């Protein structure tokens, strides 16, 4: 397991002596102080590598109907398939190798999480910046909308959105972005309000720089630290939310089997004892979410100026 993880962890710049410490080095040094967070990072990198390499390492292509045999359905972990390879995690209701299913499912879950996270962060940050810089009525209107949305639980908002949008990867990503953007807008507005009053902004304005350049080139970079923390936490949340929606049957369709779809498929067999179809994709989901949260937790401690010694 640590084969793939070790080189990546070692690739981090080593803890440099305090002589000429750049902010980035200081950041890396205090991040690696926490073993648990380092473990989380290694685990996450491993999961991403496994997902990327899925077509190369998976024993079977679960999309290829020709390679799937119904005779293999609901085989317990460790049994041998009709084609002769060992199904270490068993097979699902239609005879697909579960390990292959999980590897391919990880790709979809991670992709949905990453896309929605990046989109929500960009859109939310832009809206938050505009609110802080414009002030007045624009700011009021935007922040009211943010308050309204944050007062409703995300599961409910997402459910209503997919009820309107329908199934499909693109629609789920839209729903997840609409659920998440408000967190970024609120946070970025908070830090942009502080930055706005600083002298470098005044300097930029008196140099005659355009509003767009002042906001995105000068204010934005100084508001990014909290955004990075929220990206990690919210991406984990998005992955979990997508799995929940897919499990409920309103998320991704059967043709895009994310981890949530796999778990949902196994649910019907669980009461009759074929536990592995739901349990193993669930473990993969759990590992993904926990690894991201471990990293995010440490990032929050490291990047929080109030906790600096």
């Amino acid at each position, binding site marked *: 397991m640590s084969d793939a993880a070790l080189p990546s962890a070692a690739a981090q710049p080593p803890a440099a002596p305090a002589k000429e410490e750049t902010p980035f080095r200081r950041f890396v040094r205090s991040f690696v102080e926490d073993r648990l967070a380092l473990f989380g990072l290694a685990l996450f990198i491993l999961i991403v590598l496994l997902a990327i390499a899925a077509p190369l390492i998976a024993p079977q292509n679960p999309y290829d109907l020709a390679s799937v045999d119904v005779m293999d359905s609901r085989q317990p972990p460790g049994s041998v398939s009709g084609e002769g390879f060992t199904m270490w995690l068993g097979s699902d209701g239609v005879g697909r190798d579960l390990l292959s299913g999980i590897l391919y499912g990880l790709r979809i879950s991670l992709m949905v999480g990453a896309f929605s996270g990046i989109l929500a962060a960009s859109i939310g940050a832009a809206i938050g910046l505009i609110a802080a810089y414009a002030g007045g009525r624009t700011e009021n209107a935007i922040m009211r909308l943010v308050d309204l949305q944050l007062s409703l639980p995300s599961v409910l908002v997402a459910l209503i959105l997919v009820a309107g949008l329908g199934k499909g990867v693109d629609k789920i990503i839209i729903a997840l972005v609409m659920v998440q953007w408000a967190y970024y807008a609120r946070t970025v507005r908070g830090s942009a309000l502080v930055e706005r009053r600083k002298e470098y902004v005044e300097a930029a304005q008196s140099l005659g720089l355009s509003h767009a350049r002042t906001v995105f080139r000068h204010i934005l970079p100084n508001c990014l630290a909290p955004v990075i923390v929220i990206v990690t936490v919210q991406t984990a949340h998005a992955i979990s939310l997508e*799995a929940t929606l897919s499990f409920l049957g309103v998320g991704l369709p059967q043709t895009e089997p994310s981890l949530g779809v796999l778990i949902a498929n196994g649910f019907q067999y669980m*009461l009759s004892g074929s536990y592995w179809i*739901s349990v193993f994709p669930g473990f993969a989901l759990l590992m993904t979410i926990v690894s991201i949260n471990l990293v995010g937790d440490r990032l929050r401690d490291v990047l929080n100026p109030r906790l600096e010694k």
Partner: protein
Amino acid sequence: MLAFVLRRLAQAFFVIAAMLVIVFFGVNVVGDPIYMLISPEMDQQQIAETARALGLDRPIWEQFLVFLKNAAQGDLGRSFVHGESAIKLILSRMPATLELAFVALVLAVVIGLPLGLYAGLKPESRLSRFIMAVSILGFSLPTFWVGLMLILTFAVSLGWLPATGRGPTVSIFGLDTSLLSLKGWQHVALPAFNLALLKISLVIRLARAGAREAALMDYVKFARAKGLSQSRIIGVHILKNIMIPIVTVLGLEFGSLVAFSVVTETIFAWPGMGRLLLEAITRLDRPVIVAYVMVVVVLFVTINLLVDLIYSALDPRVRLTEATS
């Protein structure tokens, strides 16, 4: 104070009105529910008749005006699938959901509070670290998967508790409850614990933070100097002071418990309004979706309003800063 109350009431009303518009148009612009309701043998004329009977042939803004007029009279439309009044349908399933959410809330306090107190008073002990690690896990675990694991462990493997459904109900004061029989408790145990999991983690964190702060206060030192017993200091002096934020947060979280019950009710086949919502979504039963959202939004807005008003009554600074901003 009156001005504050009026402004808050106006805000609450505005939020409900805004949600009414957003939800109606959000739900009605997509998909055509008529194709879910007709049988394949129907000819064009019959389809058109069905559409007319349900008012689906009129332009959307006209549908909205009719909807608004009826909504003002407390009627949010008829379910396409069940043929009953949507709001009645929701309200008839509501007691089951409220019962589940209530038991979950009690569980969150009963389990979370002692663990959080312990972790706050003995922050260095091994058990405290373990409790905090578990509470991080509680935040990370997807609710639906924990539900599956609970069924697998306690219903399939051990056979101790039933996997699905609600126990027999008894009606008292017009409210149906299953909490008066042992069988009812056996049925509610797993779903309520599943629903409570997130809130248990939350209570642990709140109680720990509160206890750590309170333990350093002068009144605790003084109580100790007076020679009071440890249990009295914790039970009376510390507990009383940390309960204020916990009760507030939990009051606000009750609405989110009701919303999250969609997931739990589906897994445990609990006959509440969350399951009704999910059925309505898969069958495009618009009136039920709209009615569900409106009921939950009204519930949310009412809870928030009450918390705000109680807070401002207790702490004048809240309404003073509102007035100046």
